[in-house]
């Protein structure tokens, strides 16, 4: 009787432990009626909101659905693997494998171009030990194969950063700047032009170029457009200030006026209004 009671108690404990353990297992994902496309959209939506692990899981689930061979799903999985937490070398390697597979299947569709872009970004910013030479090569491939595509245009900017700051051919920053300035004509997309000329303007300052040179780059940034308020406010101030140093007073007045007209709540406004007033009256600004 006692032995039977002990066995009963022991079995009860075992059952309880087992139930708790099983319930702790993640529920088997239900095969919902959602199509692959909308599953991908949901996953992209998660990724856009920084819910990377959720997005990666959804891409994997979508990819595991029978009969599914969506390159977009593979791209989604690879994209999210680059940021899934914890970020590990093996995840990055898996992402790279997936991206190469996408490219190998068809190297010219939108998905492949995106894959080429990400493939170049991996050695540039995703690896613990970066390989910017490899990134440069991959960006070059993308640019040569799809020069007009927005991602290739963006790649010109990313490659520009590598060549300017990381590679040493030519040897000095000033020489590399000169090469990069000449290549600015390759950029046709407005966003890419904006970003590229921002880079050139910064480097022109670093290499102590005359203010007119920096001004030229800043005007190109303005022409390219698409700047958020804060960046636009900074741009107006930069143009006005470099114009002031270059002695182009009309430009100073124009851009200070643009600034004060548009940006009412900026901590520089009062100071700029003083400067503007001084300039207009022919005085010296503080």
């Amino acid at each position, binding site marked *: 009787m006692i032995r039977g009671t002990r066995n009963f108690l022991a079995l009860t404990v075992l059952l309880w432990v087992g139930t708790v353990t099983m319930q702790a297992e993640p529920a088997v994902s239900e095969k919902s009626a959602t199509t692959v496309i909308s599953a991908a959209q949901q996953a992209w*939506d998660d990724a856009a909101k920084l819910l990377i692990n959720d997005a990666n899981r959804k891409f994997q689930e979508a990819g595991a659905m029978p009969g599914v061979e969506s390159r977009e799903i593979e791209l989604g999985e690879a994209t999210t693997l680059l940021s899934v937490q914890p970020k590990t070398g093996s995840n990055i390697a898996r992402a790279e494998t997936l991206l190469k597979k996408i490219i190998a299947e068809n190297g010219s569709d939108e998905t492949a171009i995106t894959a080429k872009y990400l493939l170049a970004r991996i050695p540039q910013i995703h690896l613990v030990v970066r390989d910017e030479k490899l990134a440069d090569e991959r960006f070059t491939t993308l640019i040569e194969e799809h020069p007009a595509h927005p991602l290739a245009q963006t790649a010109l900017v990313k490659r520009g950063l590598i060549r300017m700051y990381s590679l040493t051919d030519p040897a000095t920053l000033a020489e590399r700047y000169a090469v990069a300035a000449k290549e600015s004509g390759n950029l046709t997309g407005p966003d890419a032009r904006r970003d590229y000329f921002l880079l050139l303007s910064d480097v022109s300052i670093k290499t102590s170029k005359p203010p007119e040179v920096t001004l030229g780059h800043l005007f190109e940034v303005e022409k390219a457009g698409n700047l958020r308020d804060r960046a636009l406010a900074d741009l107006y101030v930069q143009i006005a200030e470099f114009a002031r140093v270059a002695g182009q007073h009309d430009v100073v007045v124009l851009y200070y006026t643009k600034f004060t007209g548009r940006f009412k709540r900026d901590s520089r406004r009062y100071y700029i209004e003083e400067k503007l007033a001084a300039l207009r009256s022919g005085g010296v600004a503080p």
Partner: protein
Amino acid sequence: MKWDREKFLNSIGFLLLAACFAYSLVKIAQRRSAEQDKSVTTIRFAHWQLEAGTKAALDAVAAEYIKKHPKVKIDQILIPERVFATWLTTRLVGGNPPDLVALGFGITDDRMARYFTPLSEEVVKPNPHNAGTALEDVPWRDTFIDGLASAPGLFNLFEYYGIPCSMVTTRLYYNAPLFEKVTGSKVPPATYEELTEVFEAVRVYNEKGGNLVAIAGSKYNSPVLMNALFAAQTQKLNLELDRRRVMRFAGAPYPAFFDGSFDLFSPAIRSALELSREIGKNMPQGFLSLAREDATFSFVQQRSLMIATGSWDVQSLRQESSFEVAAIRFPLPSRQNPQYGAYTLGPGSEAETGGAVNFGLTRDAPNPEAALDFLKYLTSIEGNRIFSEKSNWLPSIVSVPVPEAIAPFAPVSEGYPSGFILEWTGGPEVKRIYENAFHRLVRPDGGVDQFLEYFEPRYAQAMVLDMELTIKNGLRTLSMQDTTWIALRALEQGGDPRSGAKAASLQEVQAIGENSYYSRRYDLDEFEKKRKTAK
């Protein structure tokens, strides 16, 4: 039955425990039954603002709201700052958060995206609680003084996640009657020169038997004033070092330090340190080891004449003090000051003062519509006015008048771009060695040279470490942005134009960030090469 005294005494502890348990059970049961009353909608909101007056003010707003909505009950949950992050994380992960939560502690971008509802579609519509006012047709976003420019989530997620109900500024409070007694004047100092006259008056007062300290100091309060003075001394220097010429407070003078155009022996830095020392001499001995409460007690007990702190302490100080508490902007050296004027432009501009006490709507909110409506009421002209008047906190809504009692705290737009503060690099190392060295600056036998003797040899390595951390954090952000950018592009291609706009914004943000990342990396590498060559 024979009464057993010993048994009774032994059971007191148990009976006490049982009584407390029974009381708790009853309280919980009562609360549960109230919650289960389906005819009543209970809105819960949580925050950490334990300062005097804030809870009462929010209760007053809630009471007015309930008058209009009798079937609503509003519960305020106050959690101390120190444990807020832990408490919030537990509630969010557990799926039972309050409806509205103050955003700040424990909130990262991905948590905001996961657990909070973006309000971007709401902020472009007018606030219905502004009906019949001048703001009736104005989008909710534009009714805020800062236009929600600093709303949580806007910069990285391109969505509005938080709605502020106040703003904060910092000021120098003073004991008005004691001030008049010590200085013989009711007029507070407007400039640093006048402040030094106050210091002198306090010294004379102490010689006659007084035991007064001019400014209550502590680890918390002293930087409030000292940093403002320091930033004023580096205004011109900041502009000189700003090779990009954006005229903005850039944080640390990284590029200038790494390219050798700035060092700690700059006259402006020396002047700023001298000024800090002067202020330190007028604070209690050993103020660095004192806590915020020590400084507050010193002020309310009239052992100090002045104290520097934020507008969030107005109500607390006034309630605890038996005297009239007034406040002024920090008295900065004027341009005519013979010792300090050469380096300053003037008072800093507060034009970009952002919203404070931002509330977010949780995704798992039990009553999201009601909670959102209450939030709109809190940030309507009427609601925000009640909150501001009762709490003595600044309003966040345009055309809500600043109560007379806190008029000195209203942000002043007229001013100049701020300079930089030496210990603020965005990293921990420079701050740490600055704190370690600071006693050398302010102790009686100390000074700028003694301070620099300790600080300067360590500064370069600390700047390098802080820059490395900044670069590492920047790289982490950039790599995450790759994923979100591709995702937004994919959504745009799937037919969502909003995602396209966000993708464009993110591309710009990433470009600027990546530019900065590479530039800093380059500057740091060049600096390290120079250091190795110099060795």
